[in-house]
């Protein structure tokens, strides 16, 4: 299909105008408003005690969510890529569920399961472990929304890899742990890396699900995203912009990693 020059320019500029109005100008505007009063004001705003404690809480959640997702995600991906078993389709569908569930529904689900009046209410009532409106619920909500990432990034790599090398290693007498450590893990490292990057970004950025299950107390149970919303509600427009810019930096880093890994993948294919 040979487009005339007019049509080509028309398409190009309409598409760019749409992206400009929807994406580029709004994001640029936030950045401009954040850095207009100077870089000092930005650091002062993200350095307040409330902001520091929100950052610490968010990072603590990441520090728990990422290892759990790796520890359970990699074996799950292995089982999905290597084994045939009854109910495999069901498990596959269940893993994709978090992508389809509204964050608010995640919150409702966790409250109805772990809350004091919930199905597993005995944990709070009997064992005295407060989950909902406490730290464990923030972790549970974050794991719910991030559970597919590691599995879905690692599984296709395992499929492509095949089992030849692993079988060769086994024939040569290596234990399953040696095989995993020396053969499987090095092969999946980039998929795993990207899965972890996505998990970190989503954990830092999750809002709806965390809002529903957190008590949202400044300095105690307020994550970075909750702080953005609280500052905005309190009329601290600039403070909200500053934290938003901090979170946006994480998002941009994710995109950079994605571009790098895509380039590697294309390079490997050649």
């Amino acid at each position, binding site marked *: 299909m040979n487009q005339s020059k007019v049509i080509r320019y028309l*398409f190009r500029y309409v598409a760019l105008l749409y992206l400009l109005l929807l994406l580029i100008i709004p994001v640029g*505007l936030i950045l401009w408003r954040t850095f207009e009063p100077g870089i000092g004001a930005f650091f002062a705003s993200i350095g307040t005690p409330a902001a520091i404690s929100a950052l610490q809480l968010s990072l603590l959640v990441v520090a728990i969510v990422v290892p759990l997702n790796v520890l359970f995600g990699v074996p799950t991906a292995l*089982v999905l890529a290597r084994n045939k078993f009854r109910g495999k389709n069901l498990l596959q569908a269940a893993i994709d569920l978090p992508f389809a569930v509204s964050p608010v529904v995640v919150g409702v689900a966790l409250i109805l399961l772990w809350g004091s009046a919930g199905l597993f209410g005995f944990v709070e009532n009997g064992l005295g472990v407060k989950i909902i409106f406490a730290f464990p619920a923030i972790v549970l909500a974050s794991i719910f929304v991030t559970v597919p990432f590691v599995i879905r990034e690692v599984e296709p790599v395992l499929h492509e890899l095949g089992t030849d090398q692993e079988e060769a290693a086994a024939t040569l007498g290596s234990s*399953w742990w040696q095989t995993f450590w020396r053969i499987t893990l090095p092969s999946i490292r980039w998929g795993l890396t990207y899965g972890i990057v996505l998990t970190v970004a989503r954990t830092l950025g999750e809002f709806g699900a965390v809002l529903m299950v957190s008590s949202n107390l400044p300095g105690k149970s307020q994550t970075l995203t909750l702080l953005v919303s609280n500052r905005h509600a309190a009329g601290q427009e600039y403070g909200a912009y500053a934290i938003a810019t901090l979170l946006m930096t994480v998002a941009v880093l994710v995109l950079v990693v994605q571009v790098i890994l895509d380039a590697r993948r294309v390079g490997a294919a050649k």
Partner: protein
Amino acid sequence: MTVGLEPNPEATRPDTVGAGGRRKGSSYGTTSLRVGAASIWISVIVLLPLAAILWQSAGGGWGAFVDAVTYPSAVASFKVTLTISLGVAIVNTFFGLLVAWVLTRDDFVGKRLVDAIIDLPFALPTIVASLVMLALYGNNSPLGIHVQHTRWGVGVALLFVTLPFVVRSVQPVLLELDREVEEAAASLGANNWTIFRAVILPALLPSLLSGAGLAFSRAVGEFGSVVLIGGGIPGETQVSSQWIATLLEYNDRTSAAAISIVLLVVSFLILFVLRFVGGRAAKREQLAP
């Protein structure tokens, strides 16, 4: 595939015992152990919480479910959610196709950068998306567009968060499309519009539908990006996820569970249809020589 030549490698592999005295972890016992661990993990994290919603709703009985779903605020929120999501899906299908087209068929300075930032709405936290939209389209808008607390505001926020879906589902298909078919059609005298309608569009249709369906599904459940710009005015900008949050504030768990079930069913139906469409497209591809 060389399936015919070598039978099942699992069956022919000798049961060698490794130096460490352990067999490679594919014996029957280990497999079921790993399947069990994976199933328990997914169940505790994902399935049990969702089952708790069903349990709560079942506890209230059918009458309570119907009451919750037909309550005027609930019906209003469904209408707002579904109409705006549908509009957003249609607009982003059109512009998503256009953007994907320009990114694959055109060449200009900065194309790779544009290609990379398309994913920004996926990477950005929803509350930041809300703030970002508010900056340009809220009351401090430098453009003088004030859509805060209107349906248009909700729509703009949803356009933002669902932008990548259609682009990213159409782009690889456009890239793989056989240009020779288009050239053949052109040499037979077809004009551009005919080529697009008869050659390109049919090939793109499954991916267009899938992108639109994912965008719609995401829009229906969206919460974070619409709270600030929408404001949650009942019957006007209050989407269903906001209505659920309101119900929970009043501690009406059974109604919250009922509305959640409706949202879940909508999402699952879309995913189911998409799997069906995707499966058929894959089959057609397999049948093609």
